């Protein structure tokens, strides 16, 4: 699905990713944890093709395509989805108009006709129920006036609509109360399949109680320094990151 080799990226003069390796196979759920400033969100942005970051080295293969050569739109249309840590508000553009533009963009890429109005509405209804996104939120402007939890649910709704092959969730749990966390996690779990992979970026083990990962990676200073199973997350929760930092430096 995704193979990253020695990825280096910087913003301005500072190098954030310093030779990161990661392989994600179809159907796997990977979690990335790490202290503040270790490069977790940078990794998400670089994968999604944000141009603020300069890729200075390494390779990334996504479904046999050279990911780093593709623009952000092409990456999205090829099946890479990023659930934003801070979803953006777009005043005056209704949520469902936005989704329709997105879905039709993807369909055009796949050589399909734009989706018919009725089929689209049915799809919206079905996917919105996954994250309990009511009609009011569907018709409002994209994320405008949404609460923190509503924004995150909206991200998962969009993911469900676009049915990506690889979904990167960037701190989707931040700012969620326990009910919203459960709703979001259920939405994600209902989409797990042998064809679809997830990269879950989080600070806290809490989310991983709900979305059980196959692998947990620890990112420190721009590199993955340790990989384990879901029990690694528990260990991190208990002991913090310092002991890992120490083992890395020693």
């Amino acid at each position, binding site marked *: 699905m995704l193979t990253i080799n020695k990825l280096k990226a910087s913003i301005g003069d500072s190098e954030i990713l310093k030779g990161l390796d990661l392989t994600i196979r179809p159907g796997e759920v990977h979690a990335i944890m790490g202290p503040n400033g270790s490069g977790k969100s940078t990794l998400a942005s670089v994968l999604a093709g944000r141009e603020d970051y300069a890729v200075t080295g390494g390779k990334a293969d996504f479904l046999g395509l050279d990911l780093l050569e593709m623009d952000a*739109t092409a*990456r999205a249309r090829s099946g890479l989805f990023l659930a934003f840590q801070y979803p953006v508000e777009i005043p*005056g553009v*209704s949520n469902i*108009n936005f989704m329709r*533009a*997105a879905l039709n*963009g993807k369909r055009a890429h796949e050589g399909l006709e734009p989706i018919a109005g009725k089929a689209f509405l049915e799809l919206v209804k079905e996917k919105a129920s996954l994250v309990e996104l009511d009609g009011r939120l569907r018709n409002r402007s994209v994320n405008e006036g949404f609460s923190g939890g509503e924004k995150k649910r909206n991200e998962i709704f*969009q993911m469900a609509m676009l049915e990506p092959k690889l979904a990167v969730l960037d701190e989707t749990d931040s700012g969620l109360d326990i009910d919203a966390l459960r709703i979001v996690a259920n939405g994600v779990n209902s989409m797990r399949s042998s064809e679809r992979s997830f990269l879950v970026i989080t600070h806290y083990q809490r989310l991983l109680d709900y979305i059980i990962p196959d692998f947990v990676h620890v990112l420190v200073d721009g590199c993955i320094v340790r990989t384990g199973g879901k029990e690694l997350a528990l260990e991190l929760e208990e002991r913090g990151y310092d002991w890992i930092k120490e083992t890395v430096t020693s």
Partner: protein
Amino acid sequence: MAYDGKDKVLEEVTAKAYEFGFTTDIESDKAPAGLNEDIIRMISAKKNEPDWMLKTRLDAFEVWKTMEEPEWPHLSYTQPDYQAMSYYAAPKQKQKLNSLDEVDPELLRTMDKLGISMEEQKRLSGVAVDFVMDSVSVATSFKAKLGELGIIFCSMSDAVQEHPELIQKYMGSVVPTRDNFFSALNAAVFTDGSFCYIPKGVKCPMELSTYFRINESGTGQFERTLVVADAGSYVSYLEGCTAPQRDENQLHAAVVELVALDNAEIKYSTVQNWYPGDADGKGGIFNFVTKRGICHTRAKISWTQVETGSAVTWKYPSCILKGDYSVGEFYSVAVTNNAQQADTGTKMIHIGRNTHSTIISKGISSGRSQNSYRGLVQIMPSAENARNFSQCDSLLMTDTSGAHTFPYIEVKNPSAKVEHEATTSKIGEDQIFYCLQRGIDAERAISLIVNGYAKDVLNQLPMEFAVEAQKLLAISLEGSVG
């Protein structure tokens, strides 16, 4: 479903430059360049006008000669040479047309290209059209059907002949000759335009529309529109405009007057798409237009404009709220790209008691263009309990463009409530990236964001026009974010 139409519009947006830049090869009757009494007499004679009309013109010319072109707008351009242009150009055609079949086929093809079908298409959508090319109105549809309701909808030339009492009563009553340099010029040399009268208590059953087209080179267009809504009547009026792509600057100096008598309502919508000049600022229309309406008791006038064209725009559609409880509204989206300049806004003059006005202005500047909002809210001593709400937003697409706001507020009655909100923002890279990450390409993303930004105004347009306007916004901003 609301999203249906809008989505279709956005899908239709493709990489297009100015779409209406063609010229029609049609034999034209054109006056020699220059402005003097003889030319004015010639125009009047061509139109077989009564003496009072000629006198009005000559008086206006005398006034104009004493006036100076305004220099206060935030605009920089070379003033036109008023002696170098021609003041009359008319497509040659048979003297009097009895039906559309007699219209020159070349003209019909032009209308077709512009998307104005005088026949079937408009019959279906129920819009009556008056088509003005260069100096004359060439065709008006649905006259007979409207006539049954007592509605008069015809060219200004015909109105002068057939309804002199209405013209004498109302023409110049809202925008007097000496109002400003361009209104005086227009009063002297106007060649045609549209006239509309809605009788007492009649709700006009269809949208009335005038389509203005400049075709000839070396000419200016000076049309005059007068809409009179008698007591308790309603009309929605649309105006569209395009011009060929030329290297010269052409002058468009129009006057629009609206009269809303007691309890009447006029909704006036404009999609202005005059040729804006090329990317280097060469050519394009100088759009110097005076638009004003007067509201009598409990009357309402609503101006909606989508301005995307013209090299230079100078235009302030205004409302005189004379009657008690009258309402004035102004909704505007002004887009400037490349080297375009716009100085536009409104005036709300509150005279009557309990008068209300609303101003929503959305400026969008791209390229190295300059976009100014200039508005006056004036509360006269007699305007007890007047209310105004103004919101002026500016969106910058580039670092090299400029947005300016010049709000003037004069309150002479302490019971007034006047609110003014203004914002300036740069198009969010976060917003664009968010769209890109969802698989929406850059052009489409900008179109979505800009249309969303302008939504409060676009929502005021009649459906058919809204579609047009959304397309236009996207096209006007082609390639504006790198």
